[in-house]
């Protein structure tokens, strides 16, 4: 056996076949091999959420998973959510509400936020859901709790919350 493994995966709709060092995290594959540098490396230990991407529609930390563990997977990064001129509604809302300052955590915040609204729609409960046997509501408290894995050192949280609320349809 060798220290590298072939892996094929789809990223933002494009198929990639690579042979990678087994140690390569999904995050390093995206940034260093495919030059998709929208996904950011913050702590590299799953504590900050800057590397959040979607795998099979679910948000995960790209820093805590190996590229070779994603054979056949369908991955969406911030580059795949929207592009200049055709922004995802969440990207547009972050701009409108000034949901960032330095911007480093923003791709992770946006990927996470898109998934959070999907999770609430899918009825997945959270720590603050009052009744486990009823679907969670689309509330401030639910959004705050579900976004706790994304740290913003500039402290843009209140504007991030406004952006997510608008896309979720909470605000008039």
């Amino acid at each position, binding site marked *: *056996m*060798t*220290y590298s*493994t072939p892996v094929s995966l789809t990223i933002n709709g494009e198929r990639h076949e690579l042979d990678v*060092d*087994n*140690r390569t*995290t999904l995050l390093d594959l995206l940034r260093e091999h495919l030059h998709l540098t929208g996904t950011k490396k913050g702590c*590299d*230990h*799953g504590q900050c*959420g800057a590397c*959040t991407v979607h795998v099979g529609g*679910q*948000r*995960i*930390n790209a*820093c*805590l*998973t*190996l590229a*070779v*563990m994603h*054979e056949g997977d369908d991955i969406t990064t911030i580059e795949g959510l929207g592009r200049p001129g055709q922004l995802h509604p969440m990207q547009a809302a972050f701009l409108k509400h000034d949901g960032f300052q330095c911007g480093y955590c923003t791709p992770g915040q946006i990927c*996470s936020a898109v*998934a*959070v609204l999907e*999770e609430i729609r899918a*009825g*997945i*409960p*959270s*720590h603050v*859901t009052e009744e*486990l*046997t009823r679907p969670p509501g689309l509330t401030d408290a639910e959004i*705050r*709790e*579900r976004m*706790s*894995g*994304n740290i913003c050192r500039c402290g843009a949280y209140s504007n991030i919350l406004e952006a997510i609320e608008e896309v979720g349809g909470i605000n008039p």
Partner: protein
Amino acid sequence: MRPFTYERASSASSAARAAAENPEAKFIAGGTNLLDLMKLQIERPAHLIDVNGLGLDEIQPTEAGGLRIGALVRNTALASHEVVRRDYALLSRALLAGASGQLRNKATTAGNLLQRTRCPYFYDPHQPCNKRQPGSGCSAIGGVTRQHAVVGISNACIATHPSDMAIAMRALDAVVETVKADGTVRAIPIGEFYRLPGETPHIETVLEPGELITSVVLPAPAGGTHIYRKVRDRASYAFALVSIGAVIQPDGSGRVAAGGVAHKPWRVEDGDKELKNGAKAAAAALMADARPTEQNRFKLELVERALAAVIAQARG
């Protein structure tokens, strides 16, 4: 990270065999704890056996009226499962109190049980640690110990088990099902699954080399009111200082396990017995023979207060 070879396992028994044949091999499932530790060179496997392709990701009813949870069921899927939410709410609540949405989407049921302590001295390769490097000493003893264990400790280790889910599993009398390298299977009650640190804090469970968890079985629902109360330094995404997992019946009897206080989910017979006599009595029984430090003595009072809140909530 140390270089390692990698294989995708094709069956549970072949994975167990491969792991038993190579003492430097590790299973990887969600990877959220193992990869963190590998980056810090605290874990240094020479070979990874990826078990993600084994199935083991279903939740099914058992003949005894309980649930069999596949080892690879993700924390989000388990917490969201309709039957778990209805009949084992304690388990949903404990899972949802832990980690972040991103981590819960990846972390597995078996991996959660097997996660390592977050003792800061275990995480610092420059400090002696009997758990990381057997025989090197314990830096926590005599160090900063606010987060550390108060019961079941030894002179070799005062680390806590970090899992919220495991506290619920303990209170619910879960059974861990495994397959060994020779293909035989066994069922380990969770009360017998974890070891106290003693002189060998690096050996945390009764699993044998290569033995692979295939599922976790819950007995038929216990009824009662299910409560998981976690006390932590911030409202979300933090490990417990103290947590209480309880199932309380209408007559005030029930079962209770505590987190953040020991090397394993902490439940004692007398703690359950004293539950109907109130928080003071139950906490005294749970924390009997505690050996706190000056810095973590507060956990004894915190256990009692958390228990009082749980009992009050159960009474409605």
